[in-house]
């Protein structure tokens, strides 16, 4: 058994930011990352971020990843373990890691679960055909590996991810035939939607996928219009020939490790599904285990970073340590986070957090 003050599970934006503030507070930190590089989903994001300067606005996602990684350089009390998967988490703060075919056990004094989110799926006939991808998968394939998902594609979902990935598909030379949205209005920012529309891509609201058509891979898709009760309207079906379908219908928090230790979770649709219930310091119902980022509720990467910085500071307090600028930084990031949530797109998060507080038995 190897001892560590703090183990952070996940080297995405939130985990890296938590590692920074915790390490600066003099805590012995280890970050465990499943893939071969740090940065989480930022590494495939070619678009520039919104927000203010301290939230890395006007910087491309992959450049933000670079900044966060550079921030951790030359910290002697920080260890990073890549290509390592956490396969076990125990309530007595033990973590089992699978690394190069061996199981390694760590005893921590505190743990941050920053596992992020996974892509949601959509139910329709033949939804398992090859050629049907999550929007994140398309981003990974194109922007990391330089491979196209297809030549002619339809995007399902008009949230920010759907809109941004559609634009990235166009940049890569793919014909985006349409963006389909079941709701009566476009989900994402107007500025993204307008950019797509100017390039001639129709955004079909009150429309969904009825079925995919194909034998060994997707060849076409049947779309159908929806009425006010979201029921398909007979006679409105139309078939589009495509070779790829991209699903962007939201994300759900990766709470599985926390479920392993029976941490209290609650189903809160506004936060993306099942989420661990946390107190104001991001501690779960299991003492010493904290969560930050998308794993505790789906928001934007900017919010995940602010939450990460904060959780690192909360951990410092939990372990009886202090960052040289503990109070001022806490105030700064708490203000930044509430500013991010004050916009029209933060309403859902706020409702979700209120619902979470109602279910907080241990606080």
């Amino acid at each position: 058994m190897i001892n560590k003050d703090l183990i952070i599970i996940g080297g995405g934006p939130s985990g890296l930011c938590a590692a920074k503030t915790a390490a600066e507070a003099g805590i012995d930190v280890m970050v465990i990352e499943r893939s071969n590089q740090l940065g989480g989903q930022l590494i495939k994001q070619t678009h520039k971020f919104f927000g203010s300067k301290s939230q890395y606005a006007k910087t491309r996602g992959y450049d933000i990843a670079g900044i966060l990684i550079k921030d951790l350089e030359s910290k002697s009390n920080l260890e990073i373990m890549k290509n390592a998967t956490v396969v076990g988490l125990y309530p007595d703060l033990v973590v089992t890691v699978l690394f190069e075919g061996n199981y390694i056990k760590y005893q921590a004094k505190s743990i941050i679960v920053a596992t992020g989110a996974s892509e949601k799926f959509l139910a329709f006939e033949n939804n398992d055909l090859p050629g049907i991808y999550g929007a994140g998968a398309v981003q990974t394939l194109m922007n990391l590996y330089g491979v196209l998902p297809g030549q002619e594609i339809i995007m399902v979902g008009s949230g920010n991810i759907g809109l941004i990935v559609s634009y990235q598909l166009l940049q890569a030379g793919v014909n985006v035939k349409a963006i389909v949205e079941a709701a009566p209005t476009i989900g994402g920012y107007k500025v993204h939607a307008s950019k797509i529309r100017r390039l001639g891509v129709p955004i079909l609201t009150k429309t969904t996928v009825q079925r995919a058509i194909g034998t060994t891979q997707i060849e076409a898709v049947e779309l159908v219009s929806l009425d006010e009760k979201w029921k398909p309207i007979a006679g409105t079906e139309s078939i589009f020939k495509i070779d790829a379908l991209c699903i962007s219908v939201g994300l759900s928090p990766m709470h599985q490790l926390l479920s392993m230790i029976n941490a209290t979770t609650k189903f809160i649709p506004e936060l993306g599904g099942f989420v661990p219930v946390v107190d104001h310091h991001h501690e779960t119902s299991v003492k010493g285990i904290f969560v930050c980022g998308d794993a505790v509720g789906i928001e934007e990467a900017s919010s995940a970073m602010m939450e990460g910085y904060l959780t690192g500071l909360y951990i410092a307090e939990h372990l009886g340590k202090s960052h040289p600028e503990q109070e001022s930084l806490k105030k700064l990031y708490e203000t930044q986070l509430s500013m991010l949530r004050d916009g029209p797109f933060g309403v859902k998060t706020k409702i979700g957090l209120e619902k979470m507080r109602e279910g907080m038995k241990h606080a």
Partner: protein
Amino acid sequence: MRITNHPILTFPEKEEIKFMFEGEPVKGYKGDTIASALHALGIKTLSYSIKKHRPRGFYCAIGNCASCNMVVNGKPNVRTCITFLEEGMDVKVQVNKGVIK
């Protein structure tokens, strides 16, 4: 198909990697995952579902969904979307739960 022109990103030519797919010699490039290399070759079916034997491609590309599991060098259930391609790899479509010999 591989991206050649892109307004933001550059994809410089990389070293070729030879590997086997279903017993046939094929090529990918350094930096590819097994799944991205197969995809660039137009191969989208990576496995078959266990009960109904329906074709499966990858869905998430980050190691979450398990629909890209293939048999690599005789080892089943390898997540090919996050496993990097290596020279001489023997890659096969997985048709069952996976058997370790």
